[in-house]
């Protein structure tokens, strides 16, 4: 997958991002979306210790939490970038929350959702070059440089 690096923070150009909430979605062929947190988010959180997603079947409005993530220095919600229903959760995170750090865009996915109106929610998300530029602005404004722990995916 094509990606860019801004201050060592990886942004995949094929994903759609909520830059404000540091989440991404991947649109799947079966009308679901896969959701995770970004490289910026994992770097800010530090090595993750626990992740607890909402249950399958739970309906969530955009902006509401779909999971709680804990690290040694941070705890907080992962906010849904879309309105919809959770149809799958990543069970691997229960035993290995560090996947959020080492593979935030692949093995560290958090939930899959069936969106109620993806087109409407996409209006607030950015992708491609626009995503890279939006992240560049945020990273520079916040003074972020991403760090990666051992075992992180090769980018």
């Amino acid at each position: 997958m094509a990606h860019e690096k801004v201050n060592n923070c990886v942004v995949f150009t094929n994903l759609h991002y909520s830059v404000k909430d540091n989440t991404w979605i991947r649109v799947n062929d079966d009308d679901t979306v896969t959701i995770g947190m970004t490289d910026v988010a994992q770097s800010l959180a530090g090595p993750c210790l626990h992740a607890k997603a909402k249950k399958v079947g739970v309906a969530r409005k955009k902006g509401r939490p779909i999971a709680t993530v804990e690290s040694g220095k941070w705890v907080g919600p992962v906010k849904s970038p879309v309105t919809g229903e959770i149809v799958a959760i990543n069970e691997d995170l229960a035993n290995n929350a560090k996947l959020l750090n080492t593979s935030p865009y692949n093995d560290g996915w958090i939930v899959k959702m069936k969106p109620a109106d993806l087109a409407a929610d996409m209006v607030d998300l950015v992708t491609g070059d626009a995503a890279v530029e939006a992240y560049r602005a945020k990273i520079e404004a916040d003074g972020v440089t991403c760090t990666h722990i051992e075992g992180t995916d090769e980018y």
Partner: protein
Amino acid sequence: MDDLEGKKILVIQTHGVDTPTRTYSPLYYAVAAAAMEMEVMVWFTMNGTNQLKKGEAEKVCLVPGSGVTLKSMLEMAIDNEVELKVCQQSLTLWDMKPEDLIDGVGILGATSIIDLALNYDHVMYF
């Protein structure tokens, strides 16, 4: 664990900057509960009051180099919509005035704790 969304948690913090190792965890638990969409209040009383004085929380850094201070923990709590309240009488005992408080802290009379404790789903004491 059943979904805890909507539950109300009251955290009572009686420790402050004079026992710094007792300051982070109550805030961390409060933020975790808020992240799980519970309604959370942290009530500061006794020595817990002193951490709310302007200029004090930033002096507490339990892990040098981590970038985390008691100030950043308090800010994280406020950012996650945890209500921070201080006992009015404790302010007086610590010779503090309302204008000495950091932003984002409300003041309640001492006996408010009784109503709060009775009306919240669970109370955590520190």
